[in-house]
């Protein structure tokens, strides 16, 4: 029995459900030294802004138990250079491309969406987990109104054939409220989760370790929080495709996200430990699905939300014995 590993992010079909995570794979080129990026479900590029960004001063990272903090500060070349160099490389490499955009305000998001209108973009990921200069630096994704405003503006400005995914921050009182707001505003799907806000103190200097004082916590440490967000959002807006991420290291981890309701997953921090992780995870996930009697990724999406009885009925119909008997 062959496994159907295809999945889709809204209207876009992917060969398999394993993508990179924004900011953890640059624009794919460095990883192509280790494997063919066209074999991935897709490459999610580092959030790009309108203008070139230096990023924050160093130190930009701290290792924490089963995780890390980063305060990169969205260093990047700006959208023009990105289109000229990175996007064209990805197209030529044959990779499915999810372009992540970030802005200081709604207008910047709109400008980015327009610049990308005729570009080879499969999905647009709108990173609203960044500070909104129009609202005293409050993160867009922490406010349902600001989030909805960005998403509806981007939806209008983007090529209508390109689905847009809103990327949410877990640092909110009620993630389902934000999810509903962006869904209502026209998001075709949601990416969950961005990093958690954290801090580390350097015991040599006795001051915050990171140049940016606080930073984003990622890695396996946050996986239970990420799974909870995927679970809650899938329950709140079941029809909405979710791109799940946060601490995925193995095919088993990826399967947890899919069972919780993600249609596909992004592998972030694990790449730093293991540059071949995304490719390995595709194979591991396939084996884990087969072991449990699934014939496709689609069958497993949200499966953990079924009642024990519904699960049992499905799996009984799938056991090899039942297959022979019928």
């Amino acid at each position, binding site marked *: 029995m062959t496994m159907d590993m295809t999945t889709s992010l809204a209207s876009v079909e992917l060969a398999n459900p394993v993508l990179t995570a924004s900011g953890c794979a640059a624009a794919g080129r460095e990883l192509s030294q280790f494997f063919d990026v066209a074999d991935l479900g897709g490459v999610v590029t580092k959030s790009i*802004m309108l203008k070139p960004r230096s990023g924050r001063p160093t130190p930009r990272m701290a290792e924490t138990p089963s995780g890390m903090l980063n305060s990169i500060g969205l260093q990047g070349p700006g959208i023009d250079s990105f289109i000229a160099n990175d996007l064209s490389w990805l197209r030529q490499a044959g990779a499915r491309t999810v372009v992540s955009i970030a802005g200081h305000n709604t207008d910047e998001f709109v400008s980015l969406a327009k610049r990308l209108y005729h570009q080879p973009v499969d999905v647009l990921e709108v990173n609203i987990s960044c500070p909104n200069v129009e609202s005293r630096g409050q993160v867009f994704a922490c406010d349902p109104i600001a989030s909805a405003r960005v998403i509806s503006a981007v939806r209008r400005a983007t090529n209508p054939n390109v689905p847009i995914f809103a990327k949410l921050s877990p640092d909110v009182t009620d993630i389902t409220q934000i999810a509903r707001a962006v869904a209502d505003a026209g998001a075709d799907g949601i990416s969950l989760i961005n990093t958690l806000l954290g801090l580390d103190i350097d015991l040599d200097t006795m001051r915050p370790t990171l140049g940016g004082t606080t930073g984003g916590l990622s890695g396996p440490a946050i996986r239970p929080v990420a799974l909870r967000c995927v679970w809650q959002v899938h329950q709140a807006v079941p029809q909405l495709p979710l791109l799940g991420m946060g601490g995925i290291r193995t095919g088993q981890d990826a399967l947890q996200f899919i069972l919780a309701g993600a249609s596909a997953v992004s592998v972030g921090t694990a790449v730093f430990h293991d540059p071949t992780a995304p490719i390995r995870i595709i194979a591991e996930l396939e084996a884990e699905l087969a072991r449990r009697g699934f014939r496709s990724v689609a069958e497993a999406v949200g499966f953990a939300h079924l009642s024990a009885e519904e699960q049992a009925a499905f799996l009984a119909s799938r056991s090899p014995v039942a297959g022979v008997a019928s």
Partner: protein
Amino acid sequence: MAGEAGDQAQPAAGPVQETGEIFDVTRFGEYTQFTVVAPGVARAYQPGQFAAVAVGGVETSMLLRRSFALYGVKPGGEFAGTIQFVVAANGRGTEWLVQQKIGARLDLVGPLGVPFPLPRPGVPAVLVGGGYGSAPLIPLAEKLIAQGSEVEVIVGAATARRLFGDLQIKRLVGTVTVTTDDGSAGQRGWVTDPLPSAIERLGAEIVYACGPMGMLRAVGEVAQAHAIPAQVAVEESMACGIGVCMTCVLPVRGSDGVSRFVRSCVEGPIFDAGRIRWADVGKLPADLYGADGM
């Protein structure tokens, strides 16, 4: 950046991820030297490059690899496919590493980074190593000697137990100058004390250095005072080592005069000391490319 100084400055082949068996473990003072069978890493290696080693085992809480400069690489011959690196046990990951025994397996990614750019054959060079920083200078010295350069090497450390490679360098080069802060070996003082006279004696046209940031900066200043370039191997915290995360940046002035935050893992770790804006490391200078976009 570094590539501008010579045409060997691009790695011959890309890095690989491979599991290598520890072939030998030897203590030198406070350091532990590992010899590991890693033919894929060895194959493409050039002096100046490093490897990133996973630490802590399968269920570790330590997600990030630790980087170590490579030397003693034997792509062929009797110990074919071995690499060497030396570890100072500082923190959690290196403490784990130095407890690994012969026969244990290490998960490696390498070779990473750009190699030391080589001068035209025959150009005299002074090499300066601080602490374990002298390790990558050994294969560099070999290569320079092989291409006909006259070479002098200065190695220094806080104290005798933190010197590395002095004997090996002496065997290789015929002589070595040793300094220690406490005078427990060689002359008391810093590597920069004997550096000017070495440059002058040799008529050196290039200096190479590897060691702590403060030392690299000082070496760069001495070289500049002699109007010659210094190629230095820096050590910045690296989350990925392969260029995808942007944690390892340094403010570096480009050939176009514009300063940028540059990844020390893929555009370094070898930089022209004169290009690094030492005083701005850990800062965000306003004239940096993209600083106005923040």
